[in-house]
């Protein structure tokens, strides 16, 4: 399997970055919803620390992914109506924006609240700003609202991929799946 993307499918680096980040984002969303209702104690502190560590990991992977995407080539769009193509690309752009904004709003909240920021107990990252109660509240609300909006965008993203896979029966989903065989279309382009 090629590391780089081809005209017809995503390369394994793009694929693994996609699915690793998908797993981290969904897992961290669930963790975030659980942790805020936990009763005070060491477990809560540790779960918060893991949530922050995963969020920082998403941020780091995002930087890698954007860099790689600028180096990598891109598969051609699957044949589809223009509005679907535009909607898909707009959804991707917003997803990238949210993958940046959600960790950064969390980091801002953590900094403004005066909490330490440690990556899996290995090293610490600096605060983005001084302690500030007003910004802390604003960043916390932003972090949460962005998450709920992200869920809506993910419904569009996942829904679109599934509709293409199940109804249009094209390679939109398959070309992002490691180990998957592409369906042959009229062009017979298979890899």
């Amino acid at each position, binding site marked *: 399997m090629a590391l780089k993307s081809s005209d017809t499918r995503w390369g394994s680096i793009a694929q693994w970055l996609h699915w690793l980040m998908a797993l981290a984002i969904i897992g961290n969303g669930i963790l975030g919803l659980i942790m805020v209702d936990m009763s*005070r*104690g*060491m*477990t809560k*502190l*540790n779960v918060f*620390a893991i949530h922050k560590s995963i969020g920082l990991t998403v941020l780091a992977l995002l930087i890698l992914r954007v860099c790689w995407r600028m180096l990598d080539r891109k598969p051609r769009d699957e044949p589809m109506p223009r509005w679907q193509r535009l909607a898909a690309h707009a959804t991707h752009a917003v997803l990238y924006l949210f993958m940046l904004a959600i960790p950064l709003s969390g980091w801002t909240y953590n900094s403004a609240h*005066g*909490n*330490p*920021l*440690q990556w899996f*107990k290995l*090293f*610490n990252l600096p605060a983005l700003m001084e*302690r500030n109660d007003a910004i802390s509240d604003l960043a916390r609300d932003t972090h949460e609202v962005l998450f709920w909006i992200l869920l809506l965008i993910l419904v569009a993203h996942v829904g679109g991929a599934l509709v293409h896979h199940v109804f249009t029966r094209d390679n939109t989903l398959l070309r992002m799946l490691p180990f998957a065989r592409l369906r042959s279309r009229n062009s017979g382009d298979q890899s």
Partner: protein
Amino acid sequence: MNRLFTLLVLWAIGSNALAADYRVERSSTLGFTGTFQGEEFNGSFARFEAQIRYDSSVLDASSFDVTIDLSSVHTGDSDRDEMLPTAEFFDTSTSATAHFKTSRFYKSGNEVIASGTLTLKGVSKPVDLNVTFTPVGAGATLDISTRIKRLDFGIGTGEYADTSTIGNDVQIKAHLKLGPKA
């Protein structure tokens, strides 16, 4: 013989007079630095009492006796400030104060060390303080520092004993402003 006696008396009076008693000004601070998730945080005690008798040339006659109201702790984080008085940490409902009393002073190189006993949460252990005494007019400033291990005194029990989240080393610092005792 008479002269020798007079000298002895003068020396005895002199040594007591030299190791002066001081009044601790309200602007004095006493606190600590701990670590949480790899980052330092500072705490301070708003209420403490210190009886300070000190002279760097008559160390044997010097003494510190300090009592700290543990419930007066502030660390700049309301969650932490609510946790610290509880049973897992200071347990102020059982022992409201910490107490330090010197047993002897000695010099180690240029440093003055005050050896004594710290009693905290019902545990008494020997603790050495580094002492920096700077005369200022009729008074002085007195800087104290030492390092203890929180688990030696049972600060943070059960799940809170995990030193990978809450560091075991705690630095204790005091900056006392001393005025002449009226």
